Every structure is written in structure tokens, then in C-alpha cells.
């Protein structure tokens, strides 16, 4: 690729604009679910503001809501978020500056902000990551507050097909990543691992196990 102009925070925000609507919709349903699981109105909003990881929050709250133990709820959330370990390592070289600033920006890493900031061959754009992350964070927390305080505004986000917005985004982003045979092998093996483990393991494990597919890069590195 020839040198493109440097990208800005605003480009990151633009990259996830459509998705922010879907994230806001899921924020509303998280707020509703958490409220109906007996969490009160404030705890769901605090959780979205401090955790910012939708799938883990849904899992923890639904386990609590169905009478599961605290340990089960926290374990499920940690398993679901374990993928942010390797994901954090992948973006680490591109997050410069003092440790506190790297710490704060690392919190804006979610699947979607990470995916849109990937430039291929292990490169990431920190400004895109932060612009996209802040946009999604705002949508997630605002949506949660609307759901927790406001009640039934939207109805079921799946009725609007919002659940299909996420795999569509990831499909659009994985295709340009496949520029070599190794990348193709990693994508196929990663997808196969995730699919094979889905019926067998708790949610979250298939995704973290799929990251083992990048070990096909060991020999030639």
C-alpha cells in the first residue's frame, strides 16, 4: 500500500458510526435485562461504564438473574474477556506514551474498535482505535442508561436484525486481512476451532481457543 494520509480520531468514530446504533440498541436491552434481574437502576450503568464488554456483562447478569452464584457469574465474564489478553498484546506496540495513557486507552479496546483499527500484517492505528472506542463506549453507556431508567423504548433489538450487524462487520473486516496463505490458514483454522468448541465449552472459550490458530505463524517467524 502507498502512504495514505494520517488518520484521525474522527475517522475512527466514522468507521463505527453505523455499529454504534446497534451497540446503543444492545445497551438498552442490557439495561432492561439487568433491571429485570434485580440489579436496580444504578448498578447496570456503573457496570457498563467500568466493564465495557457487552458479552461478559450479559453473561454475568443473566447468571445472577437465574440464581447462579457470584463465582459462576464472575468466572463466565472472565472467560468471555480472556481474549482481550492476546488482543491487548497485539495493539501494545502501537499505543505509545506514558503508562497511565496506555492504561486508559487500553480500556477502549473492544472487538469492534480493535477490528476497525487493524491495518493488516499486525499493524494497528491507535487514533482509529481510540476514536472508534470512545464512540462505542458512549453508545454503550448511554444505551444502558436509557434501558435501565426508561424501560421499553426499543423492544427486542433482534427484531431489527441488529444481531446480524456484528458478524457482518467482522466479515467485512476479516476479508482484507487475508493477504497471504498463512493469514488464510489462520482464518480457516480459527473459525473451525470456534465452531467445533461452541457446543462443548462455556461461551468465550471458543473465541480464546481460536487465537491458538495464529500459532501457524510460528515456523516462519
Amino acid at each position, binding site marked *: 500500500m502507498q502512504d495514505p494520509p494520517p488518520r484521525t480520531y474522527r475517522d475512527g468514530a466514522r468507521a463505527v458510526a*453505523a*455499529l454504534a446504533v*446497534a451497540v446503543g440498541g444492545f445497551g438498552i436491552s442490557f439495561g432492561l435485562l439487568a433491571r429485570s434481574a434485580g440489579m*436496580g437502576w444504578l448498578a447496570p450503568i*456503573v*457496570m457498563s461504564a*467500568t*466493564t465495557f464488554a457487552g458479552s*461478559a456483562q450479559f453473561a*454475568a447478569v443473566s447468571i445472577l438473574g437465574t440464581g447462579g452464584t457470584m463465582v459462576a*457469574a*464472575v468466572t463466565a*465474564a*472472565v472467560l468471555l*474477556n480472556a481474549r*482481550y*489478553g*492476546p*488482543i*491487548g*498484546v497485539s495493539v*501494545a506496540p502501537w*499505543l*505509545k*506514551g506514558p503508562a497511565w495513557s496506555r492504561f486508559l486507552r*487500553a*480500556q477502549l*479496546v473492544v*472487538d469492534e474498535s480493535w*477490528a476497525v483499527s*487493524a491495518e493488516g500484517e*499486525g*499493524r494497528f492505528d491507535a487514533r482509529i482505535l481510540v476514536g472508534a472506542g470512545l464512540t462505542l463506549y458512549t453508545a454503550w453507556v448511554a444505551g444502558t442508561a436509557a434501558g435501565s431508567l426508561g424501560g421499553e423504548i426499543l423492544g427486542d433489538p433482534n427484531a*431489527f*436484525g441488529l*444481531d*446480524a450487524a456484528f*458478524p*457482518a*462487520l*467482522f*466479515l467485512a*473486516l*476479516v476479508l482484507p*486481512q487475508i493477504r497471504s496463505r498463512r493469514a488464510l490458514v489462520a*482464518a480457516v483454522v*480459527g*473459525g473451525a476451532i*470456534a*465452531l467445533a468448541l*461452541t457446543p462443548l465449552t462455556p*461461551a468465550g472459550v*471458543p473465541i480464546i481457543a*481460536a*487465537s491458538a*490458530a*495464529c500459532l501457524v*505463524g510460528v515456523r*516462519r*517467524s
Partner: protein
Amino acid sequence: MSTTWLVVAAVGAATVAIKATGPVLLGGRPLPARLTGIVDLLAPALLSALVVTQALADGKAISLDARLVGMAAAGIALWRNAPILVVIVVAAAATALTRLLV
């Protein structure tokens, strides 16, 4: 503290720590050469896993449902070089329409 607030605090602290580990410990420096060959394959491997699980998984079950119509529509939009915004909207609309009709 109630169970609710303990869970909120524990999940929050664990997530913040997991997300921060790589960037705080390794941030701003190139990864060791042995790691880069592995890490540059993380995006294709994990993105592909996210596509598969979010399009096909329903809890622990594999569910072939309206999302597949949305993914097919997204595939056609991508093949026609549509911008990502259009791909996402087309996928959601095709999925919603399928749920409405079926």
C-alpha cells in the same frame, strides 16, 4: 455490599486488568521478533472466530437462522464493493425482513 455490587466490582476490576496487561507492560515498543509472526495472524484468526460464533451460535447450540440470510446479503454487498456502512445496514435489514416474513 450486596452480591450485585460485588459482581459489578469483580467483573469490572478483572476486565480492566485483562485489557491493560498488554498495553501497560509491552506498550510503545515493537514486540519481540518471535512474537510478531504469531501476533500478525491474530486478527484473521479471531475475526474469523467472531464471524462464525456471532452468525451461527445461539448459546451452546449451532443455529441456522435468519442471521444467515443477513450474512449472505452482506457477502453480496461486499462482493459488489459496497462500503462497510452499507454492508452492516444490508445485513441487519435482510435479517429483520426474514424474521418478519418467516
